[in-house]
């Protein structure tokens, strides 16, 4: 991150490192130098939905993974489900199981990247350490075993996809009705061979973050801690379910507002409003209206709304997590890291269970179907939160309208609030140390936003932080990328 004080006496931080897309944070100071306002801007253009119009709907599970190289599976899964709604079919048992397995693999690889390589340098090397080494390379020098384990955990997640579909990213194997090819016995055994190491690495990460919590209680509990609503999908018993759950909304006190809502009815509960300073829209829970209806999605939201986990090791950690809020939702943004690791652990455990299912290598992987309806909605929990694909077609099956509601977009209001809260805590006046601004960036990293997805745009994620004085003059600029 580069930092500069402009001639006109203003502050700018750019670009937000270690997240994706193109973004800028502005921090507005009052006359006394205290933070008055802060905003997370996204400056990319959203055009992918328009590009898809006119294509045959069954192309979408192979086109939409191109939106993002980190969560292509979620796009492919949600897309395949939307196509199945249009066709009026369900996937076969094995096809569904294999898709669930690929999806869990993506949760593992995405969460491993977020925690071990993007966020842990702050914990291990220190928030105020030299930014030139406060990254994965610095982590490799300080804790080479952890860095290597993080890479291998990510590799395991990717290998699940590769061994089923033949590709690590931009998979072609997820299709309406299931998957294109069965899992071989050789590949099943190879994937099972990873489970012990993946479990151990995830537990190491959990130990690391819990020790950090213990040693930095005040910081962790005060870091962007504010109440919001939460949205996530859950199973029939309220259990954590990222592949095929129903929507559950929870309020800031833990009251369940909506439960077991079919994702196809998402527009009855979620509305979006455009704002003039960002390409990201502001989604909100419709019954509560704009602002009061802001909600969060992603790991923290999913564990807040869930009643239990499905696997024993993750359930043990889940109970520990729930104890933090004493039965109420946990609002501290820093807890995204812990919940991400609990999800990773659950994904590894569930992957093992699936790999031991006797029907996982069955050749019955796909249901056939054809165009039957002119509208379909598919949903899944992407690593960053709830994802919706909504397609409308003409009578020939050509797409006439595409709406993609992305996790990062849904977290947009909360990311802005998080930036404001952390800026208020750590930024005082225009002469701000790099470490303070790193904390502001870290508030964004907690959400691990994918701006490629949310704006559907290309980007190498340059980031800009501007601090403006009470007269609107930029007094300080930090730039990365």
């Amino acid at each position, binding site marked *: *991150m580069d930092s500069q004080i402009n001639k006109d006496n203003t502050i700018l931080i750019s670009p937000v*490192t*270690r*997240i*994706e*897309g193109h973004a800028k944070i502005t921090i507005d100071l009052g006359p006394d130098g205290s933070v008055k306002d802060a905003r997370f801007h996204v400056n990319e253009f959203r*055009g*992918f939905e*328009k*590009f898809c119009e006119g294509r045959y709907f069954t192309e979408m599970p192979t*086109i939409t993974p*191109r939106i*993002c*190289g*980190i969560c292509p599976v979620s796009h492919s899964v949600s897309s395949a489900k939307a196509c199945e709604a249009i066709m009026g079919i369900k996937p076969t048992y094995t096809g569904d199981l294999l898709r669930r397995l690929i999806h869990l693999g993506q949760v593992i690889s*995405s969460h491993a*990247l*977020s925690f071990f*390589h*993007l966020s842990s340098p702050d914990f291990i090397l220190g928030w105020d350490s030299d*930014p*030139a080494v406060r*990254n*994965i*390379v610095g982590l*490799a*020098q300080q804790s*080479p075993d952890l*860095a*290597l384990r993080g*890479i*291998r955990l*990510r*590799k395991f997640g*990717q290998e699940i996809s590769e061994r089923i579909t033949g590709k*690590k*990213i*931009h998979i072609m194997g997820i299709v309406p009705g299931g998957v294109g090819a069965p899992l071989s016995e050789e590949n099943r055994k190879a994937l099972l061979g990873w489970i012990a190491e993946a479990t151990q690495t995830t537990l190491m990460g959990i130990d690391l973050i819990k020790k950090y919590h213990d040693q930095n209680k005040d910081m962790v509990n005060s870091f962007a801690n504010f109440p919001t609503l939460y949205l996530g999908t859950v199973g029939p018993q309220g259990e954590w379910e990222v592949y095929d759950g129903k929507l559950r909304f929870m309020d800031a006190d833990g009251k369940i507002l909506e439960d077991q809502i079919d994702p196809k009815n998402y527009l009855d509960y979620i509305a979006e409003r455009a704002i003039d300073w960002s390409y990201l829209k502001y989604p909100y829970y419709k019954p509560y209206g704009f602002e009061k209806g802001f909600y969060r999605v992603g790991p923290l939201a999913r564990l807040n709304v869930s009643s239990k986990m499905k696997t024993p090791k993750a359930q043990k950690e889940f109970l520990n997590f729930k104890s933090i809020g004493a039965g109420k939702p946990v609002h501290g943004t820093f807890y995204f890291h812990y919940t991400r690791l609990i999800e990773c652990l659950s994904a590894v455990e569930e992957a093992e269970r699936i790999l031991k299912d006797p029907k996982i290598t069955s050749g019955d992987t796909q249901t056939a179907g054809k165009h039957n309806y002119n509208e379909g909605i598919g949903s899944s929990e992407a690593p960053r939160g709830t994802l919706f694909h909504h397609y409308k077609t003409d009578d020939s099956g050509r797409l006439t309208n595409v709406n993609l509601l992305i996790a990062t977009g849904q977290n947009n209001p909360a990311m802005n609030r998080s930036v404001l809260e952390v800026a208020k805590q750590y930024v005082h006046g225009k002469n701000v140390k790099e470490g303070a601004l790193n904390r502001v960036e870290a508030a964004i990293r907690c959400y*691990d936003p*994918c701006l*490629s997805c949310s704006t*559907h745009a*290309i*980007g*190498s*994620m340059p980031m800009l932080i501007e601090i403006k004085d009470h007269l609107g003059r930029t007094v300080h600029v930090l730039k*990365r*990328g």
Partner: protein
Amino acid sequence: MSLKGDRPANILVVGIGNPLRCDDGVGPYIAGCIETRGLSGVHVRTVQQLLLEDLEEMLQYDQVILADASVSGPPVDFRPVEKFSGQLLSSSHHLSAELFVNLAAGVYHKDLKLHLCCVKGLSFEVGDKISDFVLQRAGEAVDLIAGFINNMTKGKV
């Protein structure tokens, strides 16, 4: 680096980019052209973006060549990638080539031989067409890469 003696060349060419982002697809296009030439000992892959775990695979090769689109710089740039001591940008969606060389040394204690071939793109909008100007430059890039590989396998590099 040279490859002498009886051992066959073991070279990986990776085309990086998103073919649905117009000129961003030039990396995979170049990789495809290299594959068509059928050079002995040359393996070709295409990816939308570099991933950390790709490093383990890269380390199995004597030489890795990345082909990618750039948003600035000369129309065609072909250069070795060296270790970098300054601040390295990395995000969940963007890794620099220098980061791979640094990580190879830091995590695997190995020397990654890496070259980067960049072709400057003109349009990165949503779409599946590479612009004509960039396609012409891509042809030059293919010749550069193929020439480098030929020289390397003859021990001239």
